[in-house]
């Protein structure tokens, strides 16, 4: 009890110094939280991947199409439960800053393979009935104030022309990691337009999504798919959805690694800041520690006193920092171009990491002052001035 009282009173002995140290920790924890959030949001697609899904794309690049005819042959491979496909549509909605994924999909199978996209049954039926219908994520509803029956006009770029889609469904992400800002429409609608305007581009899809019954079959099924189309004009590269998503972010890998590294460097810096404060505080109290030892207080009491003060400063600074992380992250998300990150919020892992870092910083910063206080002989401590 008295140790706790001394910890609190000692922590407030130099109010300005303690406040500045806490502020430093708070700023560092907020920066750590923001950087970690950015890194984690980049990896969101990877985290959201299903173990049962494989992606088959053109072996050269994702931008080259595959024939629709591959679907039935893939479906016959043992272990394959369902096969669907999609095309990246691109296009511009309002202006080029309004980014969200627009994909042409097979309306009959796509939502079976993506059960995390939850569409009300009546809306799905309505979508299936209408060729130029689309289903949008609930984030787009909020972002653009859209509702069922609204027209979404898109200026085509990959597929030139003025395209108009009617909102017939709104999907809700089942999981926190699922992107709530996609737009899906009928591949058949796209294909019909292509047959009319660019017949040489018709009958092609962007990639296949293969649902396998057992995730452990993934290597075998992937190999069999690729063997099936080896030496054809459109060879495939099949991999797990996770690997596919990782391939997307590989180009930014160095930047992400640097950001991750910097976020931990920040933790190192706050450790030094707090360590410096604790060293100064312990040095000033050398004589008091000696008096306490004279009175009969033991090493454990001094460890509790110094370690406790360090932890309490670290904990309060970190709590302020964590509380600030949420508005800072939200503010950061608003200045980013729309759609850069479909989901941008602080993850539980970031909070756990920040708390663990605060604990580690608090403990590490007190090690040297504790060692000094414990090792100083009483008679030397009593001679200390100030």
């Amino acid at each position, binding site marked *: 009890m008295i140790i706790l009282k*001394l910890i609190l009173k000692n922590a407030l002995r130099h109010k300005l110094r303690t406040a500045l140290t806490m502020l430093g920790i708070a700023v560092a924890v907020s920066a750590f939280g923001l950087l970690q959030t950015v890194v984690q949001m980049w990896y969101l697609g990877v985290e959201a991947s299903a173990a049962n899904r494989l992606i088959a794309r053109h072996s050269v690049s994702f931008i080259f199409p595959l024939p629709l005819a591959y679907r039935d042959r893939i479906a016959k491979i043992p272990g394959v439960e369902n096969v669907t496909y999609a095309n990246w549509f691109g296009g511009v909605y309002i202006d080029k800053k309004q980014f969200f994924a627009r994909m042409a999909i097979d309306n009959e199978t796509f939502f079976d393979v993506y059960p995390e996209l939850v569409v009300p049954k009546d809306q799905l039926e309505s979508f299936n009935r209408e060729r130029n219908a689309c289903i949008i994520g609930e984030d787009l509803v909020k972002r653009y104030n859209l509702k069922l029956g609204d027209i979404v006009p898109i200026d085509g770029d990959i597929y030139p022309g003025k395209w108009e889609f009617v909102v017939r469904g709104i999907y809700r992400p089942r999981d926190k990691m699922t992107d709530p800002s996609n737009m899906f429409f009928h591949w058949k609608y796209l294909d019909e337009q292509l047959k009319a305007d660019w017949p040489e581009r018709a009958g092609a899809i962007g990639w296949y999504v293969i649902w396998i019954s057992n995730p452990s079959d993934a290597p075998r099924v992937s190999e069999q798919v690729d063997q099936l189309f080896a030496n054809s004009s459109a060879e495939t590269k099949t991999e797990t959805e996770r690997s596919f998503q990782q391939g997307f972010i590989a180009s930014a890998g160095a930047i992400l690694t640097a950001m991750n590294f910097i976020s931990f460097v920040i933790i190192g810096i706050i450790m030094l800041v707090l360590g410096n404060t604790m060293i100064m505080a312990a040095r000033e109290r050398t004589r008091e520690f000696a008096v306490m030892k004279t009175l*009969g*207080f033991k090493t454990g009491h001094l460890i509790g006193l110094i370690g406790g003060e360090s932890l309490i400063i670290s904990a309060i600074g970190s709590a302020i920092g964590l509380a600030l992380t949420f508005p800072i992250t939200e503010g950061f998300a608003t200045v980013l171009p729309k759609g850069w990150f479909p989901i941008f919020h602080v993850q539980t892992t970031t909070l756990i990491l920040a708390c663990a870092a605060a604990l580690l910083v608090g403990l590490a910063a007190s090690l040297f002052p504790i060692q000094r206080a414990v090792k100083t002989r009483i008679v030397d401590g009593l001679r200390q001035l100030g």
Partner: protein
Amino acid sequence: MAIISIAGVSKSYWRDSLEIPVLRNITFAIAEGEFFGLMGPSGSGKTTLLNLIAGIDRPSDGTITVAGTDVTALSESMLARWRATNIGFVFQFYNLMPVLTAFENVELPLFLTKLSKNERKERAEFALEVVGLGDRIHHYPKQLSGGQEQRVAIARAIVADPTLLVADEPTGDLDKVSAEEILKLLERLNTEFKKTIVMVTHDPRAADKAHVVKHLDKGELS
């Protein structure tokens, strides 16, 4: 009957490879209930000898027995426990915790005992009454005069009812009036509360209060 027995005690410090002898073969005893004064010039080893008696330093040679315990044979942890119950220390510069009130400073050593909160409160208030600061219990050290701070330090030294009170130049930092008050208080603790007191001083007026005075010079008793 001797409460403190010092036999053949020597103490040296090492500075690099140079041995600096501070005390040489000291042997004497202090009777229970005595007010013992230790005088000598600066650097004579008075404080070192007091520290050895109080168990906050260890001799290079010899034994020190206080109230039947050979303090030179105790481990650091045992020595800490022993000090908590047997020694009350009064420093020249008071050494109060600046962040604690007079009451909290006096109560501090009692946290090492098994006393209840109420018992601690009663004891601390009584100790402050004894030193005449019953009306200053919620004052912080910086709100007290030097003499009052030293009285709080004395209250802290006696609150756990130790066997022995050791005082290192208790009047060394005080004006004449305050010094006289502190000496009277120590005298009262010796006569009224039967406390054995070992006091280091180089103030002859302080030494006059002691029943027995020994002189140290260059580490040897004279």
